[in-house]
């Protein structure tokens, strides 16, 4: 880890005029970036509560107890506000860029990854597929000849919540650990952010999936799955600098298609 910090610390050591031997590693790396934004470590430091940039003067105030990778700030809200430091237009920009897969999403979020997108896109997706799935069964029941009374199926909500939240939380974690093991240097928060925004296209397609024609439904889900999977794989490839990652990329693509088909088959059968 220190070899990583050494080349990012060059500008700061130039400013300091001496080798910053005593300053802890976190302060050295944070001089050129928003602090803790390129977070290699998950438990956020207490220092992250300060908004925006830290100048060279401010790191010294009151954070004598700052350690890298400490768990001290886990239960305080202020240490998580750094992940929600976005405005409306930034979020809208990221949403629209998730619809057009190009490999530059990670460079866009590099300075300021946000978890707002992950949380609320997945929550919206849960609500939409549960409710529109019920609408779909209602429309199909009206078209069919049988006179079974339609009833709202509440278990759709449970299933949707389990599937979407489980996918959005676990899959990035699995890829993070896998890529760390294979030697690449990736950040978990950015993975969560990217996978969260990749679910946005399913929100748009779920509105179209209500149409009770089977052929149209399959077409829509194939297009949505393709767009989302290509978004994920292109960004994964451009982010991790290793070249022999084909298996990992194929796995990511397959998982995204799997989610798309699961949504189609369980909720819009």
């Amino acid at each position, binding site marked *: 880890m220190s070899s990583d910090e050494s080349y990012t610390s060059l500008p700061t050591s130039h400013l300091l005029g001496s080798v910053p031997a005593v300053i802890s590693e976190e302060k050295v790396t944070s001089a050129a970036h928003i602090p803790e934004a390129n977070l290699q470590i998950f438990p956020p430091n207490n220092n992250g509560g300060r*908004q925006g940039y830290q100048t060279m003067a401010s790191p010294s105030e009151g954070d004598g107890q700052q350690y890298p990778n400490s768990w001290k700030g886990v239960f305080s*809200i202020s240490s*998580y*506000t750094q*992940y*929600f*430091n*976005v*405005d*409306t*237009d930034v*979020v809208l920009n990221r949403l629209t860029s998730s619809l057009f897969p190009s490999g530059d999403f990670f460079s866009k979020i590099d300075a300021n990854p946000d978890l*707002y997108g992950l*949380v*609320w896109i997945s*929550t*919206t997706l849960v*609500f939409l597929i549960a*409710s529109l799935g*019920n609408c779909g069964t209602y429309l199909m029941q009206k078209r069919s000849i049988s006179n079974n*009374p*339609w*009833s*709202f*199926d*509440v*278990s759709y*909500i*449970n299933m949707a919540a389990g599937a979407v939240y489980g996918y959005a939380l676990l899959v990035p974690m699995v890829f993070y650990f896998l890529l760390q093991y294979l030697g690449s240097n990736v950040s978990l928060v950015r993975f969560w952010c990217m996978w969260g925004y990749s679910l946005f296209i399913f929100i748009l397609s779920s509105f179209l999936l209500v149409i009770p024609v089977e052929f149209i439904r399959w077409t829509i889900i194939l297009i949505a799955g393709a767009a989302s999977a290509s978004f994920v794989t292109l960004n994964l490839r451009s982010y991790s600098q290793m070249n022999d990652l084909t298996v990992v990329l194929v796995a990511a693509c397959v998982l995204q298609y799997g989610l798309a088909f699961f949504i189609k088959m369980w909720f819009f059968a």
Partner: protein
Amino acid sequence: MSQTQHDHNDTVALHPSSQSDIDEIENLINAGPSSVLPAKPPSPTRASIPVSSSPFIPSNIPPPHPSAPTSYSNKPVFVPQAPPPPPPPTSHGPSGFGSGPNTLTEPVWDTVKRDLSRIVSNLKLVVFPNPYREDPGKAMRDWDLWGPFFFIVFLGLTLSWSASVKKSEVFAVAFALLAAGAVILTLNVLLLGGHIIFFQSLSLLGYCLFPLDVGALICMLKDNVVLKLVVVGVTLAWSSWAAYPFMSTAVSPGRKALALYPVLLMYVSVGFLIIAIN
């Protein structure tokens, strides 16, 4: 010691402090705040005496008398004040504040009536915002959680009653959605850097559910799809309109939509549950 003191008082002066132990404890408790708030000119020093020393002063006074003038310079200030304090706290406890000492011994109906009137007043302030009212912040200062609790449970019960299958699951989903949703919405505002107080926000989001409660009740009584759509649409708009000023002023203007969208999402999902459950 205090018991003998009271017996002494009873036999000597037939003082109104022939009280039960509970009243005595209440007076001790309430003599604390009642000694701080009234701006009575006599003695700021007396403010510290009634709470801790009314059982003790009468027995402690004789010894310091001979030694006070010689050892401490400020003791004489306390000493002459000491005899007056014991009677006044016991007499101005019951007369100073009407509800102070009586909340433990008042009838249950009084407590319930007081809480209900607070719920109604909070409801009027939150859900029927009146631009001409004199104290716009009052609902926020007097927040309580009984009102939101009633409204959430009522909505869950109404939805569960109008469901034809899986009634208990419907109640569980509705309750979990609303309760967890209120907490998560508040956390969302806090994480976006907004300034709200956690329980105030829970209280306000719970009170803003009242129009949806009314809508759910109407939809339960009359099962017609068009009527349901209209009623839920109107009540949804009303709930969102009631919650809007509170949420939008809590965050910076660049993030207003980010804070308001989850509120809208929660109310739309509840509205959808009301329409769809039959």
